[in-house]
């Protein structure tokens, strides 16, 4: 087997092991959440018998170990359980499967993250490479200063400034990103423009500075001096000689920021009333909707692991020592 294939398989297996550990941690920490779903729903006045019956119906009376394996076993078959909310003591059961709740929200979040990534990653790479090319020039300093400024403000502030400027004063994009199922693709893109721009402003500084640093880090290498001594123009020195050796750190920082776009954007979702998964999770935590919280946490963990795994693999594949062994 080619060593790259075996390394990738090994990383995948390790990722899976990590996910199992994370699932245990998620389960345990939710056990530690204060309060009880039964009491939260039925109120302080409920009799002990009612609460006990309610808990039995939800399976909360069983031992934790049993419930963990029950949960993880169903998850493996694609069943994330049934949401706690929608049930009531009245006997009418309007509870929905977690998959139906989380699925569309996750879709929305991925959509927003993709749009933001499509804008920010090329922009950051371009800025980073050009800043490295003209390092210490006015352009470099201006790019650094601007992106640092945008990252220094809290994201909700950036969001409100954008709403004020290009949502209200010059209404180019709508300030409410209330996408719905069945909306045509381009209308959806149009609606998500403001949150996408906000997210771009938040992550582009980090991406750009790391790209610049990864390239400049290599510029002191003897092989870069050699390339210059072979008469290669500056732009080719960067693109052909430095960049191919800089992919590993750049991929790592892109993965890190993409993960943020999926799991860390709840504030931006709230500001733009965007129906994403972050908001769903916050609501679920406050209503003690354990199956939904667990599902969201597990999705977030898987996202992190998968993205970092991808970055690792890019790092391996872009390293000729591993790709072409002796």
């Amino acid at each position, binding site marked *: 087997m080619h060593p790259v294939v075996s390394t990738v398989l090994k990383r995948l297996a390790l990722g899976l092991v990590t996910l199992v550990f994370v699932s245990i941690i998620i389960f345990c920490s939710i056990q530690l959440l204060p309060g009880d779903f039964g009491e939260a729903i039925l109120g302080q006045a409920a009799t002990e018998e009612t609460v006990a019956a309610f808990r039995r119906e939800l399976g909360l009376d069983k031992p934790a170990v049993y419930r963990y394996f029950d949960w993880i076993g169903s998850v493996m078959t694609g069943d994330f359980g049934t949401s706690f909310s929608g049930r009531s003591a009245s006997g009418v059961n309007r509870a929905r499967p977690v998959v139906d709740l989380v699925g569309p929200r996750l879709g929305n979040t991925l959509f927003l993250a993709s749009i933001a990534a499509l804008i920010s990653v090329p922009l950051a790479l371009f800025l980073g490479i050009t800043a490295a090319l003209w390092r210490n020039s006015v352009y470099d300093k201006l790019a650094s200063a601007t992106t640092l400024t945008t990252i220094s403000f809290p994201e909700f502030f950036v969001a409100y400034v954008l709403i004020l400027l290009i949502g209200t004063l010059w209404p180019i994009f709508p300030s409410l990103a209330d996408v719905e199922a069945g909306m045509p693709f381009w209308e959806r893109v149009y609606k998500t423009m403001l949150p996408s721009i906000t997210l771009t402003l938040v992550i582009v500084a980090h991406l750009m500075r790391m790209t610049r640093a990864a390239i400049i880090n290599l510029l002191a290498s*003897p092989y870069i001096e050699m390339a210059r*001594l072979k008469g290669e123009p500056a732009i080719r020195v960067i693109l052909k*000689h430095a960049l*191919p050796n800089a992919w590993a750190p750049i991929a790592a920082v892109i993965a890190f920021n993409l993960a943020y776009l999926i799991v860390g954007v709840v504030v931006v979702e709230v500001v733009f009333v965007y129906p994403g998964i972050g908001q769903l999770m916050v609501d679920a935590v406050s209503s003690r909707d354990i199956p939904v919280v667990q599902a969201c946490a597990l999705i977030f963990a898987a996202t992190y692991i998968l993205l970092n795994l991808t970055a690792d693999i890019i790092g391996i594949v872009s390293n000729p020592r591993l790709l072409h062994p002796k």
Partner: protein
Amino acid sequence: MSTEKRSTPLLKMDNLHIEGFADEKWNPIIKGVGLTLHRGEILGLIGESGAGKSTLGLAAMGFTRAGCRITEGSIFFDGVDLAQKPERFKQKYWGTRITYVAQSAAASFNPAHRLIDQTVAATVRVGLRTEADAKRDARELFSALSLPDPDRIGDRYPHQVSGGQLQRVMTTMAMSPRPDLIIFDEPTTALDVTTQVEVLMSMRKIVEEFDTAAIYITHDLAVVAQMADNIKVLRYGREIEEAETRAMLREPKEEYTRSLWSVRSLRKKAVKSDDIVLSVDGVDAAYGNRIKVLHDVSIKLPRGKTVAIVGESGSGKSTTAKAITGLLPPSKGQILFNGTALPAELKDRSKEQLRQIQMIYQMADTAMNPRQIVGEIIGRPLEFYHGLKGKAQEQRVIQLLEQIELDEGFYDRLPSELSGGQKQRVCIARSLAAEPEIIICDEVTSSLDQIVQEGILKLLMRLQRERNISYLFITHDIATVEAISDEIVVMYEGAVVEQGIKDDILSPPHPDYTQLLLSSVPEMDPDWLTNLLKGKEAAAAV
């Protein structure tokens, strides 16, 4: 070598001044050096590190490293003053009319691209040849430089090829556009002597074949003697003298030039002794459980004497040292100290056993904590082995500093405030502090200049006379071996080829490998390489 002069010089540098920015100010590096080179001529630039050799070599291309600038003078290449031209203009010359061969080929090839693509890049970029034609030509050059599998070696990546081979590929890269001038910047310094000879031969062959002019930068006079028509000696950015190669070797005018090969005149009289302090007895060792690197190594070290271990890189010299110190426990055999076997593992040895064997390393820089002052560095073994503290420790450190010929003003200095030779002296003092019977010296002079080397070797010999210390001296440099050793151990591929008194080992008859090793050491005779080449051809013809 063509010495015929032609009317207009290819390269003429006049009164060149170059400054470098360091410690918040501009410091002169090159202080008014001139240079004239005609087509087909080879000029050797020689001097110790910091003499400005590389800076001057690069300046011949009109190139200055980041943080350097040309402040005065002219660099006329084929009638154009490169000192006055912008980089964009000079790029038309670089890589095509003037090419560069760097010291470390391993670091100077881009790890991400195939060798052949890097070899022909400049030639193809400016349209001197089509890509297919340039590659065909490169493969012919690979073959002319006797690289193995010349048709396919170019398809490999740099890490898949050995250092000596990479250096030859780089020579091909420099030759591909058929330049007017090649700058060789210490191209063989990082190579073993046996590999160095092959690379030198191929470089000379190709430069002669195409009648290319060259500047050959090195600190090794014997090497430059084989390559150059003329030699220029530099020191502290100034020219000491320039002369025709034979004339300079016969009678150097300046004292400094003479001192450059003084280490080669140092020679200790070998004394035989049967009082063995350390004996390595049939040792096998392996890294991990698989790769066996030492095969039945037996070495005897007489008390108060110096045994030199020689061999090329990968021959197991340093691994033997690791086995002796207990860092790499042998899988078979034992280490006897004064007749008793030492525990194989470092952690099983007593403090007293540890004290008796000390080490000095090649890189004095990395062997010292950069945040500790000299007093702390030398004081640590005093406290660890002898329990000396406070005032007593301080006095002892100062005594030790005197022994290594440094005054007590060095007590408060950080390693970064010392020169290369001073750093190595501090490392010697640190090992002396333990008062050992044996000091293992691993290539301790390899990264030092000739003059500094001589000082260190003299110091080591004096300490041996005064304290009856035994040295196990690991080196690949035969001149150093001749200077310091009583006995020599020749190693090859993890096994001992022979051990004996210096004079016996160095005089014929030799086993094949010793012969190869000794015959590869460049000699001061400018005809040495030519004769060696002739000998090889004659042997091949038979």
